[in-house]
């Protein structure tokens, strides 16, 4: 990805400045001087061209001790390991001195005039205490940045100070601005990412402070250009005087700036943004004490930023969690997850700040709020197993946050955000806009803004929102499992209670038969034993007792039969429709004439039970038909239908005929019966995993009952 840096000294322009070796510029800002010594001998082997003038003497070939004094050199060497030279200068002979080691055995000392406004560090300590208190009290990130900008401007006297944040694509946006009143406001402007090349960003994480005191004074070159000890150009990144890239100088000049400064704001090891100052009224020398204070502000500001970001994140997380619980409550209160989610409505949208949502579970689709017209295609195209988010989908609604529930079954929750058409005010045209400019750094002698209208995008989903969607998905996952477990337990319970009910029905029917036999028998005994003394009425009453007993016996037999179907194992075998119909006809008291179509269709089931089913259906057809019934049995595609030309069933009774012991006719009409035949037939079909239903029926014309036996 990163292209190799250019060789030191290579001329740079806009096309290669992202490869400029900014750590080895080969020169320093000319208000200070640099000495590079061999640490073994302390002999100065390389120096900035202006060093003799600043020190009032030749420097090359001299020793540091000779030039600065042995005690000073001793302290400088001791402090050379320090990571932040800006905070710890050594003040000597009206100069602030910093030391660092750019390479093994090389000791560099940078010297800088203390300046006209030098003040004691104690004065700044008060200032620091005040500033830190101010930053710590900032309730929001916006407030913190505003205060930071104000404080930095107060301290440095810079004409304008911004605080800006780098967006995820590294372009900057100005969030706070403090400026001289007569200057135009730049607040809210965006800067292209290319304005600060990657190597410059990286350097900010290492050396948090960058001051350019005067853009007009040329850099003072190092002599010789390459360090005699290493044979390479010196790495000046640890120092404060490092010369500025000519491209950047031009950039500043185009903005009309005469001096500038930048302070890094970092959060979690990433360059979050910069506090950036521009001066427009000549050189601005910021003394060491102020710079040190600014560096502290950058450090404390960064810490405070991190804390506030976390606070904002946790607040937002809290808000979204509340919405999620509301959604879960709805789901818990509903009979299905789908209904629960749909009922959650606005709360479901608020889980991640969406404008609309689509939920699809097992081909059942629910839409909430605003959804794109191509929602089905979009759902069908989802293949990822994880939550995914985009804010520039090629869709009617470019914001799409998808949480798959079961990809294989096409079950998803997808949130949508509508297009967010907005304008980015660029401080100057980013390269990506391909604006034609002969001299891009200086379009027409000044900076001007370029408005970019952004379309086809929604507001991006932030991390917390994506997290929230993920959380909801997990919670629903648990729910799905729980629901499945509940169903399994319920099914087991139902199966058990069905078995108990069957067992109960059996025992009840069986035990009821014993006293019933007694009643029937004793009625018979009375008739036999008192034949001569009983009058006609008494005999008739006894005959009624016998008849009623017989009827009750039939009812109990039906109940026994019904309960037995639920309990007995099926003895599965293969047979044809023809064969089992023949079995059934044999059992009928009055075998009717039948027409069979598709009789060779194979069936698989418990032949005895299927026979019973057919006996019941054919028996009914005979029972409820005219003197010459026309019964047709049609078998096709796993389904068998028994059609008759009988009395038919009125539509209002289509359900009732399947209720056990429910009769539609007086019990002696149509040859009587217990009213359990259809119930038993249906139960046999269901026991096989199939169904039995009334296909059609017209009173006076006939009925057709059909059944299947399930898959196997």
């Amino acid at each position, binding site marked *: 990805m990163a292209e190799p840096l250019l060789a030191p000294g290579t001329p740079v322009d806009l096309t290669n400045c992202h490869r400029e070796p900014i750590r080895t510029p080969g020169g320093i800002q000319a208000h200070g001087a640099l000495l590079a010594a061999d640490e073994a001998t302390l002999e100065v082997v390389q120096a900035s061209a202006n060093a003799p003038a600043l020190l009032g003497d030749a420097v090359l070939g001299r020793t540091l001790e000779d030039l600065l004094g042995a005690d000073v050199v001793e302290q400088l060497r001791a402090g050379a390991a320090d990571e932040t030279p800006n905070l710890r200068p050594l003040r000597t002979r009206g100069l602030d001195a910093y030391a660092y080691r750019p390479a093994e055995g090389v000791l560099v000392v940078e010297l800088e005039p203390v300046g006209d406004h030098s003040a004691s560090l104690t004065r700044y300590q008060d200032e620091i205490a005040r500033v830190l208190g101010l930053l710590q009290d900032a309730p929001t990130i916006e407030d913190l940045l505003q205060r930071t900008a104000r404080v930095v401007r107060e301290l440095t006297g810079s004409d304008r100070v911004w605080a800006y944040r780098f967006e995820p694509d590294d372009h900057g946006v100005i969030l706070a601005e403090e400026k001289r009143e007569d200057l135009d406001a730049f607040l809210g402007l965006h800067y292209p990412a290319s304005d600060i090349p990657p190597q410059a960003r990286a350097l900010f994480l290492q050396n948090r402070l960058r001051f350019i005191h005067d853009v007009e004074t040329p850099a003072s070159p190092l002599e010789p250009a390459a360090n005699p000890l290493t044979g390479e150009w010196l790495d000046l990144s640890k120092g404060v005087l490092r010369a500025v890239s000519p491209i950047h100088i031009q950039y500043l000049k185009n903005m009309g700036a005469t001096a500038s400064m930048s302070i890094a704001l970092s959060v979690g090891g990433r360059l979050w943004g910069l506090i950036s100052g521009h001066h427009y009224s000549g050189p601005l020398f910021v003394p060491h004490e102020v710079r040190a204070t600014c560096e502290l502000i950058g450090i404390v500001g960064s810490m405070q930023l991190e804390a506030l970001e976390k606070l904002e994140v946790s607040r937002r997380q809290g808000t979204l969690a509340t919405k999620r619980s509301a959604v879960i409550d709805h789901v818990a209160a509903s009979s299905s997850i789908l209904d629960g989610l749909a009922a959650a409505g606005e709360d479901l949208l608020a889980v991640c700040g969406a404008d609309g949502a689509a939920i699809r579970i097992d081909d059942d689709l629910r839409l909430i709020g605003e959804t794109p017209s191509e929602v089905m295609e979009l759902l069908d195209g989802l293949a990822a197993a994880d939550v995914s988010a985009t804010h520039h989908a090629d869709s009617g609604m470019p914001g799409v946050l998808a949480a798959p529930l079961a990809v294989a079954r096409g079950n998803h929750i997808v949130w949508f955000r509508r297009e967010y058409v907005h304008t980015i005010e660029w401080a100057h045209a980013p390269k990506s806009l391909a604006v034609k400019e002969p001299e891009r750094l200086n379009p027409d002698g000044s900076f001007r803004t370029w408005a970019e209208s952004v379309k086809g995008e929604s507001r991006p989903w932030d991390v917390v929102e994506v997290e929230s969607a993920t959380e909801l998905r997990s919670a629903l996952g648990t729910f799905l499992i729980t629901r499945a477990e509940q169903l399994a337990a319920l099914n087991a319970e139902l199966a058990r209670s069905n078995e108990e009910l069957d067992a109960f029905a059996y025992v009840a029917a069986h*035990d009821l038969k*014993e006293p*019933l*036999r*007694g009643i*029937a028998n004793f009625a*018979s005994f009375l008739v036999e034993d008192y034949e001569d003394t009983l009058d006609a009425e008494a005999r008739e009453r006894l005959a009624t007792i016998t008849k009623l*007993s*017989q009827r009750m016996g039939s009812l109990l037999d039906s109940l026994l039969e019904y309960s037995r179907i639920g309990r*007995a194992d099926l003895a599965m075998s293969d047979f044809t429709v023809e064969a089992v119909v023949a079995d059934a006809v044999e059992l009928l008291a009055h075998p009717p004439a039948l027409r069979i179509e598709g009789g060779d269709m194979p069936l698989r089931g418990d032949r005895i039970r299927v026979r019973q089913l057919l006996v019941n259906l054919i028996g009914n057809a005979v029972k409820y038909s005219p003197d010459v019934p026309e019964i047709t049995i049609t078998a096709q595609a796993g389904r068998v239908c028994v059609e008759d030309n009988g009395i038919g069933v009125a539509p209002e009774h289509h359900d009732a005929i399947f209720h056990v012991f429910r009769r539609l006719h007086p019990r002696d009409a149509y040859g009587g019966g217990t009213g359990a035949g259809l119930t038993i037939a249906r139960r046999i079909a269901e026991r096989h995993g199939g169904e039995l239903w009334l296909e059609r029926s017209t009173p006076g014309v006939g009925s057709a009952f059909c059944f299947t036996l399930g898959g196997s």
Partner: protein
Amino acid sequence: MHARTLEPLAVVEDSDEDFEALSRVLRETTSREGVKRYVSGEDAVAGLIGGEDARPALIILDLNLPGIRGMEVLAKLKADARLKIVPVVVLSGSSREEDIDAAYEAGANAYLSKPLDFTELRRIVLSLHEFWQIATLPGRGQ
């Protein structure tokens, strides 16, 4: 064929009404003394297996008994050296296939369902009696 007397005839039946109906038919074929009733499984086991009762020519056994179930009585009868050769006819209120199969597996010689209609009962019992009178039975030499 010469008809023998099918006595003594043991009836294991707890229901008085069912026993009365059965007796009513047996009265036509067998002397009152020729029928020995046991009112429970315990009663039958105590009298037949552990007791002094004469070995019956035929046992009519109800399955639905209080206490020791009919199936258990059947198993004990068939496990007893003296009684296992005596034909056992199960006369039960149950027409459940499992009961029928289990009874034959335990050694029942016939299984009859108790009908609700007395005329039907009479027909069944008379047929039963006639058959076992005709059939050559073991153990006549005792």
